């Protein structure tokens, strides 16, 4: 892969190099051709001038031999292939080479200038003496010099092409290694920083895992502590309760009125303590329990609970909207509904017309269930304490209860990965919301 890319780059560079050189050479050749043509014209004109000046006497005195001799001087000019002189009447007078056939030359003088012809360069030049025209000189030159020059330039261009390609290749090799080194260096740096980040991430994850373990451990310790406390507290309390019952049944006649009242208070408090311990036990058991998820038909469940409440003689109005099904632990979710509904019943009991509405809102794929009542409500100022264990916003005299119900709700919902929230206003009622994670 790497080799393919570098090869392509090298080929591209060499191609550009070649094209640039070819273009340069092409322009150079063209320029050279034009310059050569001009210089050849100048050269032939100059030679013509010399020959004409020398040939004037020969023409003036009709000496063809002398004219031929003068023309023969052109032998020293390898670029001149043929030349001839016409006399004043335009008749062929002398030729070069002397033996050349007359057919080789134009029958009569033409335009007096030089220009390119098929096989070279040719033209006429007047032979004059004091403004009197004695005759005309014709000269024909070949392009051998041009061809030779072009061949030399071609060879030079080829050599330059080879040389520059070589230099380009070597430079490329040098630069390539340097570039590759640079790239490698940067890649290594990137890799190092990536490794650092990865290590850091791992460390963080490790720390999170550790913390989580610590937290879980602490949680479990707390749970087992509260479990064992509540469990262990139950036995002595039962014994206290039992003996208090015996005292109440068999010895209350021996106590005076005040003694009986105190005994009743003690008995009542022992009962309440037992209740508290039971609920605490139930709450702490929740933490130890594993979730068993299944499809729950919420509407059925809620309707069952509502009819249970009604069978207990609750007179309030229940409005139950259709509820979407959800996945969760059947028994626990049932506990949530039970707690919320009995809460609503409890706190709206003192109203003239208690109304309890149960429904759901689905937003962005998350279903939030709610239970609304028009009961005592609560002060939003104490919202923080609403879901705490044994936290109560109302006195036991007003509304009985231990303060564990909402704590259980929160615990169960959290175990399901959901959220609980509430809104309320004193004497105007309260709404409790809970959602379960979509999982």
């Amino acid at each position, binding site marked *: 892969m790497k080799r393919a890319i570098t090869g392509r780059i090298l080929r591209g560079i060499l191609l550009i190099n070649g094209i640039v050189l070819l273009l340069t050479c092409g322009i150079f050749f063209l320029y050279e051709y034009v310059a050569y043509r001009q210089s050849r014209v100048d050269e032939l004109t100059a030679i013509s001038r010399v020959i004409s000046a020398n040939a004037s*006497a020969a023409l*003036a*005195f*009709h000496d063809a031999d*002398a004219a031929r001799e003068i023309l023969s001087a052109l032998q020293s000019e390898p670029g001149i292939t043929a030349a001839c002189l016409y006399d004043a009447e335009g008749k062929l007078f002398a030729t070069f080479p002397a033996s050349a056939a007359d057919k080789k030359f134009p029958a009569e003088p033409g335009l007096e200038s030089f220009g390119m012809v098929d096989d070279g360069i040719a033209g006429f030049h007047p032979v004059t003496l*004091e403004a*009197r025209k004695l005759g005309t000189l014709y000269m024909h030159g070949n392009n051998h010099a041009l061809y030779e020059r072009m061949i030399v330039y071609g060879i030079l261009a080829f050599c330059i092409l080879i040389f520059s390609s070589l230099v380009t290749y070597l430079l490329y090799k040098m630069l390539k290694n340097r570039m590759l080194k640079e790239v490698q260096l940067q890649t290594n740096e990137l890799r190092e920083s990536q490794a650092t980040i990865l290590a850091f991430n791992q460390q963080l994850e490790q720390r999170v895992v550790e913390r989580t373990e610590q937290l879980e451990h602490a949680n479990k310790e707390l749970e087992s502590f509260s479990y064992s406390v509540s469990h262990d507290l139950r036995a002595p309390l039962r014994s206290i309760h039992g003996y208090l019952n015996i005292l109440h049944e068999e010895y209350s006649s021996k106590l005076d009125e005040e003694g009986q009242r105190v005994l009743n208070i003690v008995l009542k408090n022992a009962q309440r303590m037992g209740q508290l311990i039971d609920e605490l036990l139930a709450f702490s058991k929740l933490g130890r329990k594993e979730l068993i998820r299944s499809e729950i038909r919420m509407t059925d469940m809620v309707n069952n609970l509502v009819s249970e409440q009604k069978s207990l003689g609750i007179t309030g109005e229940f409005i139950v909207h259709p509820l979407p099904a959800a996945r969760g632990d059947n028994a626990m979710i049932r506990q949530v509904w039970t707690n919320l509904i009995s809460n609503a019943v409890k706190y709206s009991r003192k109203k003239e017309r208690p109304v309890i509405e149960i429904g759901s809102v689905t937003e962005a794929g998350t279903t939030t269930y709610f239970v609304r009542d028009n009961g005592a409500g609560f002060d939003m100022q104490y919202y923080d304490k609403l879901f705490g264990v044994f936290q109560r916003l109302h006195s036991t005299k007003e509304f009985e209860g231990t303060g564990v119900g909402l704590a259980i709700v929160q615990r169960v919902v959290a175990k399901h990965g959901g959220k609980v929230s509430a809104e309320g206003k004193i004497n105007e009622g309260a709404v409790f919301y809970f959602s379960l994670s979509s999982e």
Partner: protein
Amino acid sequence: MQRELSEVFILRFRYGSEHSMRLRIAAGMVFLLTLVSARQAPKEYQIKAVFLYNFTQFISWPAETPGQDEPFVIGVAGPNPFGNYLEETVKGETVQGHPIVIKYFAQITTVEPCHILFINLTDKSAIKTLTEQAATNHTLTVGDVMNVEKQGGMIRFVTENNKTRLRINLSAAKSADLVISSKLLKLAEVIE
């Protein structure tokens, strides 16, 4: 005699009636042709006349020769072999701004100073006299008779294979302060 004839022709032409002009022109042409052929010198002298003029281009006379406002004189000593070729040749030409004049000297005694003198005499002593005068007058002496160059003539026309060649007596030319171009010398046979 010849001159008179041509004048007669011109007169006739000038005063001829206007009608049948074309006929007259044709008749005149025929007349002129017969006239020319009647007095035609040999072709050889046509060439020699041109050569005489051409010498003016390849030979340098001393400064102030001819003098200011003087014509360049070409003379013919002895009988005129050129007919009117000389006049035709130099017609409209000049030598370095000087108009060219042709003079004919039938008698040796009437010969005036010239710039070019064609000697058409055979008498050796007469030639000698003329060539001696020529040296002081800066006259180029030319001839085509035998040994004219040996009598002090500067250039002789020699006919070889029907072609006119030049033979130049360089010392004679030098004694008359005449400078002959090397181009001309190249063509000629030079004797000292």
